[in-house]
Structure formats: C-alpha cells, structure tokens
C-alpha cells in the first residue's frame, strides 16, 4: 500500500508542476473576475477540466445563458469521450473507484495513465490514488491563485506553457517507445490542417473525428495493435 502510494506520487509529480501553476493562473483569473476562492474549489472539485474552466469564468463574467454554458461544455469536453475509449477495460475493473476514475479523466491524467508501464493489476492500483492526488493539486493551485495570486511580485504571463511542455515530453516519450508512428503523425498533421481550415476555436472536434476515422482504417489494414 505504502509502495503503491509512493509510486503514484512519483508518477504524479509532472502533473504537480503543471496543475499548481495552471491552477494558480486559473485562481488569479477567477479573483480578477470577482469570484471567491470557494468557487474555485467547488468548480475544481465538481467540473475539473482545465481549459473549459478558464472559458467558464469568461462566460460567467459576460453573464452567458445557461444554455450557452452547457453547449460550450459539451463541445469543449467532447474530447474526453475519446479518452474514455482507451480506459474502458481498466475502469470497468476498478469497482467502486470507477465513477471517480471517469470523473477525474483529464488531458493530463489521461496522458500520465497511458505512460504507466506496470502489470495490469498494479497499474490499476496506482491509477486511483494518482487521480486523487492530481485533483488535489489542481484545486490547491486554484485556491492559492485566488487568495495570494496578487502577491506574486513578477509577471507570470506565459507560465501556462507548462501544460504544453508536459504534453511535448509525453509525445516525445511515446514517439521513442512506439514502433508505429502513424498515430502521432496523423494527430499532428490532421490537427494542423484543421487548425488552418476551421480556426482556433473550432478545430479540436473535427481533428479528433478525422484522426479517429484515419486510425480505424489504418488499424483494419495493419491488423491493429500498438
């Protein structure tokens, strides 16, 4: 048990950095919008999705309708649907932890869970405490940012790049481990093309749909597998 927690913690450290920094950025944004720290905490606990939380703050400030908020959440978080696909088997075998595992599936936990190279059972034992730790980092960052963000003596502009950097390290690691580079190349290539066709606000969903279609065809030719 103690070893499991230790492994989970070690695996969570990259997320610790990016979540505390990003969470603080979020907290500062919330404070500037006139929203108190307990809202940061509540949203971090029940919504728990990085990018959309930033957008939600802007929507709240502009007094957007609940319908707009719901539809934006639907589109921005539709990528989670694709994440679940990789963990159907694992989560279904996790019993009581399953609802929490579904709730705590974010870009970052998805990425780190994919990097866990342990035997199946052990991997699942690590995933649950790892997920709890990550959400704690995120909530702590948000509350901290809301309460003390104003006290930071230098401009933190650009610190949100740590999320990009985390994804780049994971992409690099996956690239080195993979024999088949078609998925990574398809992901980068298709999303770049979609970015220029659909624009920054709308390209994520079409990118994911097209990449999935390409990979389904590719798998049926290759016979699947990693």
């Amino acid at each position: 048990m103690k070893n499991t927690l230790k492994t989970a913690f070690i695996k969570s450290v990259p997320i610790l950095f990016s979540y505390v920094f990003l969470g603080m950025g979020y907290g500062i944004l919330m404070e500037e919008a006139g929203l108190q720290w307990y809202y940061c905490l509540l949203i971090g606990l029940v919504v728990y999705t990085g990018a959309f939380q930033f957008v939600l703050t802007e929507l709240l400030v502009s007094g957007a309708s609940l319908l707009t908020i719901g539809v934006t959440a639907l589109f921005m978080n539709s990528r989670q649907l694709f994440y679940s696909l990789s963990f159907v088997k694992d989560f279904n075998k996790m019993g009581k932890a399953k609802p929490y595992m579904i709730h705590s599936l974010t870009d970052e936990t998805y990425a780190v869970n994919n990097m866990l190279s342990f035997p199946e059972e052990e991997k699942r034992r690590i995933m649950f405490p790892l997920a709890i730790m990550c959400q704690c980092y995120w909530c702590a960052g948000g509350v901290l940012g809301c309460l003390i963000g104003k006290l930071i003596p230098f401009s933190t502009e650009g610190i949100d790049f740590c999320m990009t950097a985390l994804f780049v390290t994971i992409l690099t690691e996956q690239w080195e481990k993979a024999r088949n580079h078609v998925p990574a190349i398809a992901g980068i290539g298709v999303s770049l093309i979609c970015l220029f066709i659909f624009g920054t606000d709308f390209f994520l969903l079409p990118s994911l749909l097209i990449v999935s279609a390409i990979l389904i065809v590719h798998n049926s030719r290759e016979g699947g597998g990693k």
Partner: protein
Amino acid sequence: MMTGYILSAILISAVVTFAMRGLVFVFFDEDKEPPLWLERLGNVLPAAIMGVLVVYCLRSIRDDFTGTGLPGIIAAVVTGLLYKWKHNTFLSIILGTAVYMLLIRL
C-alpha cells in the same frame, strides 16, 4: 453576479462534463466489452491525441504567429529535445516554460 446563477452554471458544467467522460461506459461494461475495432482505436489514440493536444496548445501559430506562436514552437522544440537528451520530465517542463516566458518578453 447572482449566487443562484453561478451555482446553476457550475451544476450544468459538471453534469455535461461528467456525461462526456462517462458516455462510453453507458454502452460498454463488464458484461459487454467494446468491439475489436473500437478497442484497437483506443490503443492507438493516445499517441494521436497527444499530437492533437500539442497542436491545440500551440494554436496561436495561426492568428498570432510572431507574438506567441513562434516562441511556442521554439520552446516546444527545446522541451522535446531536452527530453530526448536527458529523459527528465521536470527539467524539460521547467526549462521549456522558462524559454517560452523569456521569448514572449523579447
């Protein structure tokens, strides 16, 4: 801002987000496993999604290339090369972010 409005917005966001994350599990559970093509897709998606996410993070290359786009690309390349060289996640993230923060101030 009205407390009722904020709380309703949070509730709607939470429900929609959880629904997106959980939808797949409505169709497949312990008794009904996903079909092979979907399982295979789940196996190769991580690498593809990471590529999509990196592009998503660097999306300002389209509308703000010189301001944040190019610094983002340079910092991402630095992060990737540093990781390839040292295989140290923290070092790559911290130095990559520092390079980015420096470049956007130049």
